[in-house]
């Protein structure tokens, strides 16, 4: 061991720069409290401080920064949704992603790879044409391509899928990308921290104080905080928080699992999704295949993983890429997905004054991290929903005005 390293280890002082400021305790009063230090909560804190000069803000996290779905997702970023509301919203996010590494001075490994949604049936192809038209209308690059292009671009793929689900075309979305998820949380967190926002990890919200229909404070595992604005950005824990204030919602929680293979030489550039086979796959910068499938079949508030999932996903993956049969799986995990009936998020104001909701991110919320942070910060400061999120209000379920995004969100992420 080199001498300097040995001295460094034994000195007990580790003077490397700390990414986040350590705070001894909570203040008694904040202008705003954000529950959840996932990407969404931290992004909202960042834009509150950067764009609105609001810095007497704290972010409360019961575990650690990015330890929720932000650190568990398969990082697919795209905007080829099916409703105009969705397309415009996610397209704004894709644009924000482009210069985030610059903003943060931190490499997010943002890689534009292109994204293919495979069609195995006429019905799937029909939905894709519809999506392509809506996308193009909103100025988003999106087109239906035939088997020749797929054969050329992904030569390793078995176009017949073992004979029973032949691929007849695909929706191609050139801006489709992946990024390093932990770095996204750290970048937003550090940016907020540097501007004066306090991030408190190991601090769980246990209750919310409401006085005459208005938020007045938050009860935490480390004491009480007075505040008039609360943002709830807790993804899989949303129903628990809503229970504290008696707000009803359609959010239901199912686990979503994912896994990665051992690393191999680069052979897959684009991101692939097959709704019919319930799989999606991309190859990370480290060479691992990042693999995902559909939701677990029943409600569960836990992050356990199952062998059923690995077997099912592996079987479908082999239909697309039979040569992977020798490749080993090295990790598997789960997150708690906060699902909505129409596969669109729930964002904005709630029946409780000063209580703002950023939830219903299910299996699709990572890509929305920048835009949801920005629009929620705007909504909190002005107490009016940002124009990009009016289609996502909690009210839509009372008014039977759903934003049907299922055709573009399920399995597709």
């Amino acid at each position, binding site marked *: 061991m080199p001498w300097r390293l040995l001295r460094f280890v034994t000195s007990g002082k580790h003077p490397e720069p700390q990414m986040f400021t350590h705070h001894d305790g909570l203040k008694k009063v904040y202008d705003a409290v954000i529950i959840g230090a996932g990407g969404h909560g931290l992004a909202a804190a960042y834009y509150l401080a950067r764009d609105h000069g609001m810095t007497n803000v704290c972010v409360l996290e019961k575990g650690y920064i990015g330890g929720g779905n932000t650190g568990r997702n398969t990082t697919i970023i795209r905007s080829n949704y099916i409703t105009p509301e969705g397309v415009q919203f996610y397209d704004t996010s894709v644009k924000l992603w482009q210069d985030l590494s610059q903003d943060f001075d931190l490499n997010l490994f943002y890689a534009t790879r292109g994204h293919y949604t495979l069609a195995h049936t006429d019905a799937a192809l029909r939905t894709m044409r519809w999506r392509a038209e809506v996308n193009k209308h909103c100025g988003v690059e999106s087109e239906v391509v035939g088997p020749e292009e797929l054969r050329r671009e992904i030569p390793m793929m078995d176009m017949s899928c073992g004979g029973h689900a032949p691929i007849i075309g695909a929706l191609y979305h050139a801006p489709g990308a992946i990024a390093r998820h932990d770095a996204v949380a750290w970048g937003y967190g550090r940016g907020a921290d540097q501007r004066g926002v306090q991030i408190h990890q190991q601090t769980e919200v246990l209750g919310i104080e409401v006085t005459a229909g208005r938020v007045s404070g938050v009860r935490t595992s480390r004491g009480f905080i007075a505040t008039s604005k609360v943002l709830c950005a807790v993804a899989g824990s949303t129903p*628990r928080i809503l229970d504290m204030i008696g707000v009803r*919602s359609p959010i*239901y929680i199912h686990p979503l699992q994912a896994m990665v293979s051992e690393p191999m030489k680069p052979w897959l550039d684009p991101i692939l999704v097959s709704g019919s086979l319930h799989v999606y796959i991309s190859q990370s910068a480290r060479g691992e295949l990042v693999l995902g499938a559909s939701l677990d079949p029943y*409600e*569960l508030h836990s992050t356990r993983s199952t062998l059923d999932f690995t077997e099912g996903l592996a079987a479908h993956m082999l239909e697309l890429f039979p040569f992977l049969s020798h490749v080993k799986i090295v990790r598997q995990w789960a997150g708690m997905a906060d699902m909505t*009936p129409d596969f669109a998020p729930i964002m904005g104001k709630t029946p409780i004054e000063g209580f703002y909701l950023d939830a219903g991110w299910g299996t699709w919320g990572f890509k929305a991290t920048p835009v949801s942070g920005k629009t929620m910060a705007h909504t909190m400061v002005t107490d009016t929903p940002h124009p990009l999120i009016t289609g996502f209000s909690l009210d839509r379920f009372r*008014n*039977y005005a759903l934003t049907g995004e299922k055709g573009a969100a399920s399995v597709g992420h």
Partner: protein
Amino acid sequence: MKIINCPINGPRPVSEFFYWGQMRVMPDPVASSDDEWADYVFNCNGAPGVKREWWCHTPSNTWFIIERDTEKDQIVRTYLYGEEE
């Protein structure tokens, strides 16, 4: 949770079963207000707890109720609808 006790067929692997969601009581569609009806159609009790759920044993098409802790993933008991003691 790997094995479910079907009230008709006894213990069977979970892969033989299908989940159909929480048991809910439908309000009277004529007497209920628009808000009550929307609440019934869309909203649910999403927080963890012991819940009563519809499940089906697919090979025998047996529909029945499971009382399950949705945080621990543990079954409290299973019974046919209407046969709860």
